[in-house]
């Protein structure tokens, strides 16, 4: 647990610092897909959610569904965003499909959040009884 906390903290700080420096030095990055930023943020969150899964082993499943949703969404969307610049430059006719896919992923993600909320509220009702 302690090691995990330290990893999460140092990774977050370094990531934010690096990104801050990057954006300060190159303001043009604001107007296009910054592949490095997409990759590093998603990857860190994926690692964090895996930490959570690891901690949940043999334990009560707290925030299990939200975590699953985050993983599914990030695995999909990262690839989509990484190809964002490419799609924009290629000027493909059917590039809207890509963003439709992303939208579907978001809906799935929201669905997982909804499941989590349902489960938690049901559980709370039981606690009150």
């Amino acid at each position: 647990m302690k090691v995990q906390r330290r990893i999460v903290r140092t990774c977050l700080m370094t990531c934010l610092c690096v990104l801050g420096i990057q954006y300060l030095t190159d303001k043009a990055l604001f107007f296009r897909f910054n592949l490095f930023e997409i990759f590093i943020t998603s990857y860190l969150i994926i690692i964090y959610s895996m930490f959570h899964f690891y901690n949940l082993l043999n334990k009560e499943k707290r925030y299990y569904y939200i975590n699953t949703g985050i993983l599914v969404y990030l695995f999909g969307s990262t690839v989509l965003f990484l190809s964002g610049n490419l799609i924009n430059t290629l000027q493909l006719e059917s590039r809207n499909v890509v963003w439709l896919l992303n939208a579907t992923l978001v809906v799935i993600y929201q669905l997982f959040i909804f499941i989590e909320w349902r489960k938690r509220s049901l559980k709370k009702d039981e606690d009150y009884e």
Partner: protein
Amino acid sequence: MNNLNPKDIEIISAVLYTFAAFVLMIIAVLFFVYYSRKKIIQKELEKKDLEIDYQKKLLQATILTQEKERERIAQDLHDDISSKLNIIALNSHLLTAADLSPVEVQEITGNIITTTGIVLESSRTIAHNLLPPILDKFGLHAAIDELCQQSSSGAIKIEYNNEIKQRTFDRIPVEQHLHIFRILQELINNSLRHGKATRITIVFTKDNNGCYCSYTDNGSGFDTKNTKKMAGLGMKNIESRVAMLEGKLRVESEINKGIHVTINF
């Protein structure tokens, strides 16, 4: 590299980043699988350790009860039999003495006869306590019935309900009957001694899943979360006997609300 147009650079960087992302994600997943396996195995080991520990405690309890029982038997033999036999030996010795008047002889013989009777009676009681002969001769149903009748006295009422009588225990091997008897004996003993119960109900039922024994008293009960009481010698003894019956034991109790024990075997 300089002669590449921006489009190519975009393509290459997108491909490279996607590739790197995939590889790193897979590495992360592999790490995750590796560590979770490790964690699960460790947890399983801990569970096994706990089980072994529990078994050890059970064994210790068994040995302790055995020693206690031996101590009790030794005490019974010493108090009830050895001392009386001593008296008999002394009296017999007196008989060998010369010049005894017939009155004295008669008195001594009378002494010997009464003491022998007492010894006989106590040896019978001791044997009876160790293994009730009724269990062998008339079966478990009669033995439980007798146990309840013997234990109830005055304000203490023990009710025994068993509709199908001895047939309840048909499917259980005869060697196991003693365990059931001992469990009930121990429970009644606990209820009367620690729980100060005045009403005890024992109900046996049978269905396709086996026999159910429900034991209820109105004694002081105890907190089942209090591990000290649950881990007492008596409880451990009951647990190990239920385990020998391959049954399931459930103890429900609250302070001042008596105790309810169900055994399924």
